[in-house]
């Protein structure tokens, strides 16, 4: 099975070049060793992630005798470019010529590669330094090998563009010629690594490297999860319980089986809600192609028990959340006395903001291929979390991690949806049931109906102003079902990582601030979606700033800058216990009001804030710190 698929997956990028240069099988420098753990030059939250980072060149770099350098991309590619940028960092540090580099996608194996959860906007933040260390170590091993070959001091040689040069004589040895010797050099320890001076970077920060999959994408050869085909593979679509927490009562496959191309109709195991990422269960239609499977499903007759959420109605739920937001809730931040300051304020402005559920709607709906055979499973899937997917597959099938192989394809968008591997587990369960490789394809309707929806939210902000129009009190109540409800039954309060996304980390210079989180029960599978809780929190806070400017007749940009206050590192005060800072140490990534001011000024300049706009138009300005990045926008 491995042989069948390997050429398609591993050579997803640069297939044309592979053919042209004729890579040999004898890769060296790569060794099946235990990983050296990465050590960042500055502190990040990387080491707190499961399995941390790895900076061992033998894990990430191999060099063939013909000089072709293969670099492993361990993070998933969903359009952010990390499959290109991180290997490019390695290549730059090791002085490899990018034209002679092949990028190979790592399977899910976090013990070997370090954390592979491609989420949280942190691939570069966490892996820039480890990947530079990988490249530097590989370069220094090549240099050491060359120095030995020439019997000269290592200080007399240096790596330049895929060769090691003896500076005194101009003698050169290519990377390929040194690969075997370099593989026998000891790996340079992190403390002794000499990283390049940034002024010597060839690729990093130059904006000249295109994504490795560019050609394949433009010729239709790029492989996404839905594009994997195995011999004997069956195609499946699944009718799932229409309500979260519901289950299958009975089904009649007769009409489905009459559809040309339909081969089987079988039940899919479901797990009671909440069950993290386990499948919802239902009825699968197995066919010779996806179109037949979809028609077969349309013809199915299924009886469902809708369960406890049968009456969930988003209109009445909204009213429930609004009511909660108008009453006190759990205090999650408290500075000064906002209650008293609101009472004594000259004027109180109230804003209430509702955001509905959002579905992720990646261009590529969830799809995965699984082959279960001989007590092992191999999957090909567009997953953001190959390590977690591997663990969940092992648990679901009752087998060991070592019998699970997760091949990561390109992702046609992810947005957090593809961190949840339910669709991969479905494929594995079905492959086991039918005894053949199975591709599960979610239709677009499935994607929207059965998504791990983004939280629905009501945000209510009351701001008290003094006679001069200065904001002296701010009370923000955030009511939203928590992501934790997908993991733990009955979770009703936003978790610290949700509160920390734009609620309790409010960077405003207001003496009296109170943030509350009244409870909200979930009735759908709640999941993270792009910037997660920053969406409702920032939307409410920044819209409120606009409202306050409007109420007081002030320029919204000036209002915003006044609320941010002077350039400083924001201290949210002692009421917030262990402020969640995107998993990063606050010392490395403080909340910097100066940077907020800076991006506001920059966007005002670039967006020509204050310019005349046509009748009926207006300009809006907003700023936010999301996942430790600072963003300002102007919208006309």
């Amino acid at each position, binding site marked *: 099975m491995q042989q069948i698929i390997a050429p398609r997956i591993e050579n997803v990028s640069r297939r044309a070049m592979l053919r042209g240069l004729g890579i040999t099988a004898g890769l060296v420098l790569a060794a099946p060793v235990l990983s050296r753990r990465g050590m960042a030059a500055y502190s990040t939250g990387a080491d707190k992630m499961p399995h941390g980072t790895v900076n061992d060149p033998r894990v990430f770099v191999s060099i063939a005798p013909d000089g072709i350098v293969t670099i492993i991309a361990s993070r998933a590619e969903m359009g952010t470019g990390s499959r290109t940028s991180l290997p490019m960092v390695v290549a730059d540090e090791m002085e490899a010529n990018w034209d002679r580099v092949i990028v190979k996608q790592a399977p899910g194996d976090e013990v070997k590669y370090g954390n592979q959860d491609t989420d949280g906007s942190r691939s570069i933040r966490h892996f820039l330094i480890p990947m530079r260390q990988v490249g530097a170590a590989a370069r220094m091993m090549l240099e050491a090998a060359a120095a030995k070959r020439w019997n000269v001091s290592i200080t007399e040689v240096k790596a330049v563009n895929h060769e090691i040069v003896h500076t005194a004589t101009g003698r050169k040895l290519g990377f390929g010629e040194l690969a075997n010797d370099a593989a026998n050099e000891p790996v340079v320890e992190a403390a002794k690594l000499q990283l390049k001076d940034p002024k010597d970077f060839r690729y990093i920060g130059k904006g000249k490297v295109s994504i490795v999959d*560019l050609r394949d994408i433009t010729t239709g050869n790029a492989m*996404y999860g839905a*594009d994997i085909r195995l011999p004997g593979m069956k195609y499946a679509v699944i009718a799932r319980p229409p309500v979260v927490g519901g289950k299958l009562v009975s089904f009649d496959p007769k009409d489905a089986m009459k559809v040309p*191309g339909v081969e089987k109709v079988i039940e899919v195991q479901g797990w009671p809600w909440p069950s993290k990422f386990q499948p919802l269960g239902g009825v699968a239609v197995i066919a010779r192609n996806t179109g*037949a499977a979809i028609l077969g499903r349309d013809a199915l007759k299924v009886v469902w028990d809708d369960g406890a959420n049968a009456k969930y109605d988003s209109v009445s739920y909204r009213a429930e959340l609004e009511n909660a937001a108008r009453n006190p809730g759990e205090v999650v931040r408290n500075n000064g006395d906002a209650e008293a300051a609101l009472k004594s304020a000259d004027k109180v402005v109230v804003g209430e903001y509702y955001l509905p559920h959002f579905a992720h709607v990646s261009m590529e709906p969830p799809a995965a291929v699984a082959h279960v055979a001989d007590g092992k499973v191999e999957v090909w899937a567009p997953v953001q979390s190959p390590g977690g997917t591997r663990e969940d597959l092992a648990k679901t099938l009752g087998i060991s991690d070592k019998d699970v192989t997760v091949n990561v394809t390109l992702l046609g*968008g992810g947005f957090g949806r593809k961190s949840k591997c339910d669709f991969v587990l479905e494929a594995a369960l079905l492959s086991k049931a039918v005894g053949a490789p199975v591709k599960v394809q979610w239709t677009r309707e499935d994607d929207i109906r059965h998504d791990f929806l983004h939280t629905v939210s009501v945000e209510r902000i009351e701001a008290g102003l003094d006679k001069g129009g200065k904001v002296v009190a701010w009370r923000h109540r955030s009511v939203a079902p928590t992501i934790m409800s997908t993991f733990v039954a009955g979770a009703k309060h936003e978790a610290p990582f949700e509160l920390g996304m734009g609620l309790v980390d409010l960077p405003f210079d207001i003496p009296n601030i109170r943030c509350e989180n009244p409870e909200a029960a979930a009735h759908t599978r709640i999941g993270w979606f792009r910037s997660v809780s920053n969406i409702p929190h920032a939307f409410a806070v920044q819209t409120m700033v606009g409202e306050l400017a409007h109420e007081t007749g002030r320029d919204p940009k000036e209002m915003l800058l006044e609320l941010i206050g002077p350039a400083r590192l924001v201290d949210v005060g002692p009421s917030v216990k262990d402020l969640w800072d995107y998993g990063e140490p606050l010392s490395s990534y403080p909340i910097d009001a100066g940077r907020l001011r800076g991006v506001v000024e920059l966007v005002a300049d670039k967006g020509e804030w204050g310019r005349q706009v046509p009748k009926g138009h207006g300009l809006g300005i907003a700023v936010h710190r999301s996942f430790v990045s600072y963003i300002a926008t102007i919208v006309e």
Partner: protein
Amino acid sequence: MIKLTVNGQARTWDGDPSLPLLWYLRDEVGLTGTKYGCGKALCGACTVHVEGQAARSCITAMSDVAGQKVTTIEGLDPHGDHPVQKAWREINVPQCGFCQAGQIMQAAALLTQNPHPTHDQIRETMSGNICRCGCYQRIETAVRVAATGA
């Protein structure tokens, strides 16, 4: 029995004549460059050429293409060097890339019919192809580059 030509090759289909062309191409022929995005002709990811015209293969039945010539992204140019493909690479259009085959097929059909489209004609023709990464400015630029060379 339906006879058709796919990327210059004669083919036959004796299965369900109502099967959408998309699934025939992807699952029966193995041309997976044409993508499924919605199944309702709303996103454009499945765009192919039928007799040189852009068509949404997800709502085109096999019976609709009997006796017709179908071209997919894999067959747009024998070397993958159609002017639109080259422009796409020059401008670095894609991010995740999933919608791009459909975008390229739509743009190529436009330039066949109208080799010198105006800015508005480019926007209008490409407006049915959704890109979730938001590569629209680069798509527009690349279509212009393919048409004018600059």
